[in-house]
């Protein structure tokens, strides 16, 4: 049962990355590339009816984490307290930026909310990458000092950073140069993803330029990933040992590589959806390969006193997990149905859809 809920949770998170990922990406493109009013409006239209439902994948994944792995939920959420709350604030700015902009016609007002939406999207992409970096790097579970736990074995707390930004320092911080690298990877990957979404869903005048953006961002992305692999190898060989011994990780990596290679050909694909397909493959494969390489760990321990948190030592008892299954199956079918309806009604380009909530 633990394994089942682990797969559910990770799948939900991967779906979240793909779906809300294009919203963040669209925000980043909006921030850096959309200069004309009509492009800005088109970008927000392309995500308008979707972003709220996309965000629910995060909330629902949080719910599943809470009920299936309560100890991890408690440990990670209190340990990463500050960045999580900041993510919440950023989500608030992102949403208000999108929803409030159209309410008044005043250039100052529109400008403020454009920036709020764009900046919040950029920072969210960065923070989520940093979060993944933290999971790969591990934390000081039990807050061990001089070989003695100062807290219960599964609790910890990390400040935002330490003065050296050193991932091997005695006092870890959430942001160090290793996790920051993950953050940058995430920003680039989601920029590509968002650009691909805009190309897919609109006839914006930016589209041909965005293809060039995708091409070069992809080049940068590959470079950063190679760098992170190299540095990761020096810091923490565990995922790499797993990498060699686990066929599943190989498959995920292959999916990711397919996505990455496909994106290099962005300028020659005939169908507008192809770029989005490949960037989704890239994200899903990359995310899956990363989490599978530390399996069954969910949060590795950096000390030798307390064990890592694994799917087995943080799960809720069997009865709850089993009953959860019965309602979950029903819910998933419904959610899939909503998704199909939603994407069917809003299929194709979004240029002409109009929105009664505005004006």
């Amino acid at each position, binding site marked *: 049962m633990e394994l089942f809920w682990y797969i559910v949770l990770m799948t939900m998170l991967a779906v979240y990355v793909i779906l809300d990922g294009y919203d963040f990406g669209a925000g980043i493109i909006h921030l850096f590339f959309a200069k004309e009013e009509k492009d800005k409006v088109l970008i927000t239209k392309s995500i*308008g*009816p979707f972003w*709220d*439902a996309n*965000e*629910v994948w*995060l*909330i*629902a994944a*949080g*719910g*599943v984490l*809470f*009920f*299936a792995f*309560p*100890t991890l*939920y*408690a*440990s*990670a*959420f*209190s*340990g990463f*307290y*500050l960045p*999580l*709350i900041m993510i*919440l604030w950023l989500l*608030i700015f992102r*949403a*208000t930026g999108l*929803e*409030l902009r159209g*309410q008044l016609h005043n250039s100052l007002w529109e400008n403020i909310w454009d920036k709020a939406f764009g900046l919040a999207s950029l920072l969210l992409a960065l923070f989520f990458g940093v979060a993944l970096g933290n999971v790969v790097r591990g934390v000081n579970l039990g807050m061990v000092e001089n070989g003695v736990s100062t*807290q*219960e074995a599964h*609790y*910890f*707390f990390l400040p935002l950073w330490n003065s050296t930004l050193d991932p091997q320092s005695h006092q870890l911080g959430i942001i160090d140069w290793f996790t920051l690298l993950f953050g940058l990877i995430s920003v680039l990957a989601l920029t590509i993803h968002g650009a691909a979404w805009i190309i897919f869903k609109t006839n914006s005048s930016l589209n041909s330029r965005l293809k060039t953006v995708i091409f070069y961002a992809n080049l940068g992305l590959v470079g950063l990933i190679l760098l992170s692999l190299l540095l990761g190898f020096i810091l923490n060989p565990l995922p790499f040992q797993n990498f060699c011994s686990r066929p599943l990780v190989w498959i995920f990596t292959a999916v990711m590589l397919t996505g990455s290679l496909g994106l290099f050909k962005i300028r020659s694909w005939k169908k507008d959806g192809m770029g989005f397909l490949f960037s989704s493959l890239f994200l899903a494969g990359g995310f899956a390969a990363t989490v599978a390489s530390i399996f069954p760990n969910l949060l590795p321990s950096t000390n030798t006193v307390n064990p890592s948190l694994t799917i087995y030592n943080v799960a*809720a*008892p069997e*009865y*709850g997990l089993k*009953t*959860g299954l019965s*309602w*979950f199956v029903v*819910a998933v079918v*419904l*959610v899939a149905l*909503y*998704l199909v*309806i*939603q994407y069917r009604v*809003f299929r194709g380009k979004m240029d002409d*859809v109009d*929105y*009664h*909530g505005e004006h």
Partner: protein
Amino acid sequence: MEDMLLYDRLQFAFTITFHYLFPQLTMGLSLLIVFFKFRFLRTKEDKFNQAARFWMKIFALNFAMGVVTGIPMEFQFGTNWAKFSELTGGIIGQTLAMEGMFSFFLESSFLGLFLFGEKLLGHKLHFLTGLLVFLGSWASGFLIIATHSWMQHPVGFEILANGKYVLTNFGALFSNVWLWPSYLHNQAASLVTASFVMAAVGAFYLLSKKQEEFGQLFVRTGVIFGLAASLLAAFPTGDMTAKNVVKYQPETFAAMEGIFETEKGGSEIILVGQPNMLEKKLDNKIAVPNVLSFLTYQKWDREIKGLNEFSPENHPTNVPGLYYAYHIMVGLGTIFIGLLSLAAVQLFRRKLYTTNILLWGLLFMLPFPYIANTTGWYTAELGRQPWLVHGLLRTAEGISPTVSSGNTLFTLLGFVGLYLLLGLLFLLLAGKIIYKGPQTAIK
């Protein structure tokens, strides 16, 4: 340690109070919008469709506020109440996860269709999306209150040797005696809010002599729904919730009602008075003898235990706050019924739209259902103290062990600042939509 608990509690109280200002309107208003859309389908009169469109704008804004303030709630169990989450997550996590999977997806997927899809879908399907949004929001209320009811009255579980709570009976979560009265009461109360908002907007149009056709429609709808909902909030639902409290949390009930000493021959109902915690009695009281016993047990002489009979460490931690919260809620409920009955009589005599004094009354009533709802929740939550899970887990035992008070105060201040901004923006924009009125909404 003391500070940690204090700031965790303040942050939770502040963020949830703010969050709940929005869903109460969402849940009630979605019903009223569906009603307008339904009337439009039946009568084909365009004014109903315009009315629905107008309220959808306010709904969209309100919903967005509800969503952005709701997400922090879901995360705060882990960030600020880690120990509580670790111990009870296998149970309350169920209902919270169900809320995400069943209601938030439903609401958010169809909200997009509802707001963007009128032209694409045609009126029948558009009505259907509205109905689904309504269902989603009511399901959301149901599952969150199921969670809350478990904290008030835990059922269907066992406590392991390591202190963890494990679920042993899933069905018990939904047949919890606490759940249904609370849920129905809460939904009636949220319809009260939506009805008063609608009536107040209508009264504003009538009094300022603009959009009068809509003014009449809104006042009429608001008064009729509002009266029905206020009556339901008092009886049977309010009465049933109160009976649960007296049965399962008698010390809370005594504090709510301001009864310090058990009275032989039946308890009086307190209308006015200030709890004096130094001498454990009520100052300046005005009371009617025996009525409380009758209301609670339908027997004039039945005894009700006073607070002084319970051991002090189980007394609610803030007796005066609890007492005032409860009396404000019930007092306002009575006022609502009074005002709306008068309005209904005038409506029936076809004089309401010109009875300015009642229109002013409806207009100025706007903030009060929000106050009644908030004080209602304070009654429930202050009444549960000092327990996090009633009778089992104390609030002080539930906080995150590693998050220091400085960090919590920092985030609390951040939330206060951010939410003040959101609140101002909401008022500004909602004001603008109302000021422009439904007529200009025609495309």
